[in-house]
């Protein structure tokens, strides 16, 4: 498949975001093609999460537009974006801590379920039971895929960090999103957990057909699994392209990976 030939699923068109005098994002444009893994990298405070929040609806861009499948969603409320096909995980865990893992994932089915509170209360009569069972079946598929069978009845807040990350991914997958936003899926994980997570992301992309927009600090993972990478620095886009090209980019080296020459040359200048 040639990703370039595919229509973009997500377009950010000259997006700017300001909080008072702070410019979180300035004129950022990019597009994510259907079926690719697109990563956003950049130093801390570069505006990566702000960008994802604009896509997920948490923030509304001060200027610019966001298009999802060609439709302008800049002003669509957050809660309607699940129905459009956008799911996300959060940088700091955002599970429903007192619910079981199963219930957490079932919440991900919210926009697909039809039984409201009245039918829910008469569980056995109004079809709520049938619906719950049907969706439970799908949820179990996700549970199998992410290998969390052993904790499905555990309280989510009591799980280890790595497992909670996986449950959160499961919850986002349960939305059946076309585009899944992952905010630092590997943060705080050990090597083995990172490898697992990378495998899940690749599988989601290749087998479940989800387009992935990911923020990640682990450059190894980013370079290995991304089709394309965008680099932000101080809220501006400084590079975009295939991982190797981005890595070779001079701006990126300077901004993100540190400027080796400069560090070496500085003492000389000071002497001079």
């Amino acid at each position: 498949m040639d990703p370039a030939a595919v229509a973009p699923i997500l377009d950010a068109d000259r997006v700017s975001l300001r909080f008072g005098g702070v410019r979180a994002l300035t004129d950022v444009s990019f597009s994510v093609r259907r079926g690719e893994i697109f990563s956003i990298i950049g130093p801390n405070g570069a505006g990566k999460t702000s960008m994802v929040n604009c896509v997920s609806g948490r923030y509304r861009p001060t200027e610019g537009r966001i298009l999802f499948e060609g439709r302008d969603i800049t002003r669509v409320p957050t809660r309607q974006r699940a129905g459009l096909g956008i799911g996300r995980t959060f940088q700091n865990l955002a599970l429903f801590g007192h619910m079981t893992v199963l219930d957490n994932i079932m919440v991900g089915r919210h926009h697909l379920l039809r039984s409201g509170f009245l039918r829910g209360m008469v569980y056995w009569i109004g079809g709520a039971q049938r619906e719950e069972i049907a969706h439970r079946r799908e949820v179990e598929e996700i549970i199998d895929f992410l290998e969390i069978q052993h904790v499905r009845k555990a309280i989510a807040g009591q799980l280890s960090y790595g497992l909670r990350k996986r449950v959160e991914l499961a919850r986002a997958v349960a939305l059946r999103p076309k585009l899944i936003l992952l905010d630092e899926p590997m943060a705080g994980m050990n090597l083995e957990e990172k490898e697992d997570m990378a495998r899940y992301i690749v599988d989601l992309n290749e087998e479940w057909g989800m387009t992935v927009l990911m923020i990640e600090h682990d450059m190894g993972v980013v370079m290995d699994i991304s089709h394309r990478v965008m680099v932000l620095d101080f809220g501006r886009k400084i590079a975009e392209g295939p991982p190797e090209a981005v890595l070779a980019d001079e701006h990126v080296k300077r901004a993100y990976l540190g400027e080796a020459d400069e560090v070496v040359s500085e003492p000389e200048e000071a002497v001079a």
Partner: protein
Amino acid sequence: MATMTPAGDYRSTYREDMTIFPTRGSRIALWVGLALLCLAPLVLDRYLLHLLINIGFLGIAALGLNILVGFTGQISIGHAAFFGFGAFASAWAHEALHIPVALAIPLAGLATALIGLVFGAPAARLKGLYLAIATLAAQFILEDFFARARWFTGGVAGRVTEPFSLFGFAFDTDETYFYVVLAFVVVMFAGAANLMRTRDGRALVAVRDHYLSAEMMGINLAYYRTLSFGIASFYAGIGGALYAHYLLFVSVEAFNILFSIQFLGMVIIGGLGTIKGSLMGAAFMVLLPEVVQSLADMLAGGAVDRALKLGASISYLREMAIGAAIILFLIFEPDGLAHRWQQIKAYWKLYPYSH
């Protein structure tokens, strides 16, 4: 709730895995318990039946408050006013509109739900202390309404109500009315348990636990925050209506803020965010004064009474003991009776190999 299932309890269908009572033992306990309760009016004396009936309608109202406070994570200090509204609404509907009591009770629940939605509207925007003050306003506005709306409440004279009757049979004694309350308790508690295991119930808990990610899941926060008020008020209204047709007289003074606080006490002591805790909390609040009262009666005139010269102040022991019990609960069992019950069950399941 994470529950421990005994070894050998296998489920081969999702349907079996999604029951309210997860184990065979708990299901047997349920049916045996219900059967015993059905026999209760034949065995128990009127005083104990009176207590059980009180636990019943207070438990229904407490369950409503628990859905609001425990499950949705909001706050209401006006629950007694909604309870009162349900009581008057049912009595008024029967007398003024000639609706049979059996129908007036659910209608009173619906009317109270509507009032609850009106007063719950600020909940879509307010949280925490600000919401608490808004519900406090509901308490005072409704109390004032009760005092002024003589056509509805009978004013300071109060309102006399008719007993519950169905197909010409009047449930006008403790023995018979017990069954009415029991039926309502079963239906209302089953309804709540069902709600919490389906879409909208999970959405309520999701709003409580993490509203930002709940929104990302497609949950409309304002809708569910307001809905929670509606459901809570519905339960309060049903509870109040059952109260009205039990006492056969409703007075405007009964539904003050102290009563609202008692409802909060019930859900905290019973266990926030638990269905059965609501009933346990109501039972605790009903039984504690009785137990303390009988203790006080035992003390009265005895050696301790004479030695400490308690005399008339012995009756205050009751109020003090209730206050002390609540404080002790908050310190030693903040998760409530339902949690303690889980721990006791876990202890016996693992006994004697608890570690």
